[in-house]
Each structure stands twice: as C-alpha cells, then as structure tokens.
C-alpha cells in the first residue's frame, strides 16, 4: 500500500531542505458533492509536525485553505547525515499518519 506522506530531503552543510507532500482531501466543508448535491463534511489536516532526532523543528498549522494533497517545504539548520526526521500529521476528524526518514 502506497504511503500517504512523501518526503524529499537535501542536506547542504548542516542545513536540511525538507519538502513534504501529503495525500489528503483537505475538504473545506462547503463543497457539495456533484452527484448527490450533499455538502461534503470538512476534512483537513490541522497540524503537520517535523521532529529531527526527537527535537521539533517545525509545526505547521493548516486551515481548509491549504490545497488538496498539501505541499509544505522548509529548511532547518543543525542537521547532519543520518539524522532521523519524523513527519507526522493529525486532521480534524481524528486521522493521523507519520513517516520516519533518514537524512
């Protein structure tokens, strides 16, 4: 089964460049299903957290205004090859996923 988080990392010196892509509908709660005409309930990632070797380096708080299949990229310093980056998200209906990547 394909994962729901994809991570690309690039290490330049001690600066890690992190790019992430999540498979998630990011439903706003105001869209109507074109077939049934019923409002599709809100379903979106609220918080995306990155921890490097257990130390949180970024917390991204999302609203429904982040695009479907969200993309988020950032950089942090103090990284070295072999570090373990843990990416995790939670959504507004109790869904969650996480992925560990080695820099």
């Amino acid at each position, binding site marked *: *089964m*394909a*994962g729901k988080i*994809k991570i*690309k990392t690039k290490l330049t010196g001690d600066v890690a460049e992190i*790019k*992430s*892509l999540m*498979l998630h*509908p990011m439903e706003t709660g105001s869209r109507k299903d074109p077939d049934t005409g019923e409002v599709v309930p809100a379903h979106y990632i609220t918080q995306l957290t990155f921890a490097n070797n257990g130390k949180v380096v970024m917390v991204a708080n999302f609203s429904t205004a982040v*695009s*479907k*299949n969200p*993309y988020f*990229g950032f950089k942090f310093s103090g990284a070295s090859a072999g570090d373990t980056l843990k990416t995790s998200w939670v959504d507004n209906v109790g869904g969650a996923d996480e992925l560990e990547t080695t820099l």
Partner: protein
Amino acid sequence: MNKTAVMLTSILATSLAQPAAIAGPEEDRAAFVRYFQSRFPDVEFDEFANGIYAIDADSRRQWLEIEEFPPYEFAIEQGESEWQQTFANGRTFADCFAQPSDSIRAMYPRYEEARGEVVTLEIALNDCRAANDEEPYAYDAEELIDLTAFLAFEARGKAVAVRIPADQPGAIAAYEDGKRFYYSKRGQLNFACSDCHITSVGQRVRADRLGPSLGHTTHFPVYRSKLGGMIGLQQRFLGCIRDVRAKPFELQSTEYRNLEFFLAYMSNGLMINGPGARK
C-alpha cells in the same frame, strides 16, 4: 542547442526508425512542426513537450513550483504497486508485454493489423487483465490511470514513436480519420480542435491560454489542480468536445482512439514526459 539541428535530428531519428513510413503523415508532421516553430521561434523543439508552459512564462513559474513536488507522485507509486500485483492466476502485467516497463508507453497508440484498429495503452492494459481472467478497469478508473502514470514515468526521456507502416492501409485510414476529426468543426460553438490549438494557439479563452497541439500527448496522464486528481488524454478530449458544446464520445471510442493516433503521430520525436501537472 541549435534549433534547426534539433528538429532535423528528430525528423531523421523518426524516419530512420520507420523506413516504411508513408509520405502523407510524414509530410503532415513536418508541416505541423514547421508551423509551431515559426509561430514560436524562441521555443526549442523539445520544449513543446511541456505544452502551454512552453509559451506562457507566468504559468510556467507556477508549474515549476508544483513540479518541485508534484501531486502525481502518489499516482506513480500506486501505479507501480498495481503493475507489480499478482493476478489470481499468479501472473502479472509484465507477463503480457515483451518489453521492459520503460519501453511500453512508447509502443502505444499503435495500429494492430490483425484487429483492424488502433490499440491504446489503456486498451492493452485491459486486454492483459482480460487475458488473465481479471475484470477490466473502467476507462476512467483511478487504477488504470495510475498504471499509465507509472508507465509514462518509466518511459520518460524516450521519444514518441508512432508508426504508420506503408503496408498497413488500415493504419493510414485510422490516421486520416483522426486527422479529419481534429480539423472538423463540431458542436454548437462550431469549433475544430485546430481552431483553438493551431489558429488561436497562445490566445486566451476566458481565463485560459490555449496550448499548442505539438506535444499535446506527451505529458498525459496529468494531475489537474482543478479536479484534485488524475485524468487521461481521452478524458481531456472529452472535456474539449463538451466545451465546444458537442456530445462527447465514449472513452476509447474509435473516434478518440483515431484522434489519439493522429495527435501522437504529430508529436513523434518529442520526449515522453508524463505524468504531468496541469491547472
């Protein structure tokens, strides 16, 4: 790289690859390429594989940002796991094809003499399932589109190489039918494909800029931001036909397969660069 050289190389490459090619389609293709190159003299031949992004700078920047981490990567991954899945009889998709997975996309669309029709990649994949007692996919099924995304990705960098052998009158007939379809006005708006994608190419229709037909087929399937999902080439045909207020044909109908055959032939020599990301 020198533009003329690139063009000559690709024309040469294509004609070398198919010594039996007929003058008609090859003349058509050379004229097609000449038209777009004179219309957009600053655009290298290879760049036409990028569609509208070859000719619209502001859109291109947004596209490049999306290409940094394109949402179609999930489709490629999913398609790969489908490609590797084992059917109930123990066989796999790979067993249906003589070529490795990076050489399958470029074989289609092709005219198959024995069947007397154009076979697309989607049809070949469904035939494979049927031959292995598996239920064929609907032509707009996510599984099927993901498989084509994987095979397009594997084939990146290989040239489009549609063949019309001179000893296959059915192939030239299918090509001619696709060409007639492409240049015929239809629908309440009375538009031909060529009206938008040749005559008015680069101009705006409402908020959208019209993409060049040269290179139209290289990047499918595509992730459409508008839909938040993947669509295949023929689903795009269907959308265009609907946009000119004509009644769309079924996916994989003879009409769309012949149109795909013609359009892909026009892009011979360009690199396969699917799957793509489009707005």
